[in-house]
């Protein structure tokens, strides 16, 4: 069974990538909200926000990228939910294929779709004046962190995808994730926040990830933030993966 794992995953990945290329609206709706927020923050609120940095679009792009991922993964839950509902999931499960492939294909599709969305958002940011002195290595490091973050959130998305009773239930979980960056250092420095809010903001995963990406873009030393960021990403990834797999096993062998 495991001998076919990579082949089966590739075939199923091809299938769900086709779903995306045939309904590119899922990519567009994923990117439209972060782009709208970026316009709003840069051209409406940005002038009144004192970040200590000379370009607000440079300051807030990392947070916008995380919002892009958080809104993109709701489609992963949605697509998985549709497979569960339509009966095609059962068809796959009754066939002699590597059973984990069905999930991995969705996870890798999520990764590809989110990377496309991220590239689009970065291109728009460039049009709005985003500039970075970062070299190839820094960009690769940023890509690595974003990939890790996408995988972590995707495995979270698998859980509602497998368990939801309705389409709304399958995608509603992403709203809190989309709003998490607002209570972080993504848009304003945490120093202006009142005590308890500041404590939350400074100790939740988004702040360390945003700070790391911001420093990498600005070619500043990243300090310990990068280790905290990586620990959060890997920790969320491992816990979400274990939960998702337990639920998946329970689903396929009732």
């Amino acid at each position: 069974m495991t001998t076919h794992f990579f082949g089966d995953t590739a075939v199923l990945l091809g299938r769900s990538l086709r779903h995306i290329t045939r309904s590119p609206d899922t990519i567009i709706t994923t990117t439209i909200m972060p782009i709208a927020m970026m316009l709003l923050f840069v051209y409406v609120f940005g002038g009144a926000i004192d970040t200590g940095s000379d370009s607000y679009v440079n300051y807030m792009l990392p947070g916008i990228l995380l919002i892009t991922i958080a809104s993109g993964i709701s489609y992963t839950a949605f697509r998985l939910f549709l497979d569960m509902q339509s009966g095609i999931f059962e068809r796959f499960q009754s066939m002699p294929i590597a059973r984990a492939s069905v999930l991995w294909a969705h996870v890798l599709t999520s990764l590809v779709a989110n990377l496309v969305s991220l590239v689009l958002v970065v291109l728009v940011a460039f049009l709005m004046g985003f500039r970075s002195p970062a070299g190839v290595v820094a960009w690769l490091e940023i890509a690595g962190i974003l990939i890790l973050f996408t995988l972590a959130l995707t495995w979270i998305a698998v859980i509602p995808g497998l368990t939801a009773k309705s389409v709304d239930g399958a995608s509603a979980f992403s709203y809190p994730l989309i709003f998490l960056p607002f209570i972080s250092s993504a848009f304003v420095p945490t120093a202006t926040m009142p005590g308890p809010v500041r404590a939350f903001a400074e100790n939740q995963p988004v702040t360390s990830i945003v700070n790391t990406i911001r420093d990498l873009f600005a070619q500043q030393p990243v300090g310990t933030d990068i280790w905290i960021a990586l620990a959060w990403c890997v920790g969320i990834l491992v816990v979400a993966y274990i939960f998702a797999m337990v639920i998946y096993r329970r689903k396929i062998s009732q």
Partner: protein
Amino acid sequence: MTSQPVIHVQGLQKSYKQLHVLRGVDFDVARGSIFALLGSNGAGKTTVVNILSTLLKADAGAASVNGFDVATQAANVRESISLTGQFAAVDEILSGRENLVLVAQLRHLKGPGTIADDLLDRFSLTDAAARKVSTYSGGMRRRLDIAMSLIGNPQVIFLDEPTTGLDPQGRIEVWQAVKELAEHGTTVLLTTQNLDEAERLADRIAILHGGRIIVNGTLAELKQLIPPAKVEYVEKQPTLEDLFLAIVGDSGQGGSDGADSNNSKGK
């Protein structure tokens, strides 16, 4: 032909929380035959099929398919079977041909494209091959669904209510396909609540009621269970189905793809 039954079910039990759906189901299916499992809604037909196709685990009892135990040799069972579930399990966004190629690839077969083209031809779907499945009629979708089940020539095919929701032409198309399967030596276990369907297709019929098989036999055997028929002279009126098929044109031989909705809706 071996005399060993290809499906063997003994004392199968399954409960969902308080609800005892199966209370000890026993039956055997001979190789190459069509076996119909009859029962009303909620009788547990789908539960039996899902246990046999390794999607569900039984609480008690034993079941084997093609000599493999469904609980301990699930992978071997999956190599031997194909499931056509209650709702056409096709990918709406892919075309008909892509759906077939997908299944052929997942079954690790050589020449998936050729396999797909052969099946499209056999199920009269060639004209619609490149269209998205979401544009297919119910009958075409079912035919594609069954065609997908045939890939890799599984020895046993489970059809769970294959004609539910189909119009008369679609139903005849499916019946035709099922008969052909049995002629090719495939064993078919089909569930239905349509008595006419069981009568037309099945070599053996079992009735699932109250969590048990209460009757199991050929149609002739079942008919002996009730008092002998009285001879009466009744004028044979055409049924509404005969009438419908006569007006819209009987298309039992695969039918006209997609165009059928255009033709039949005429004046």
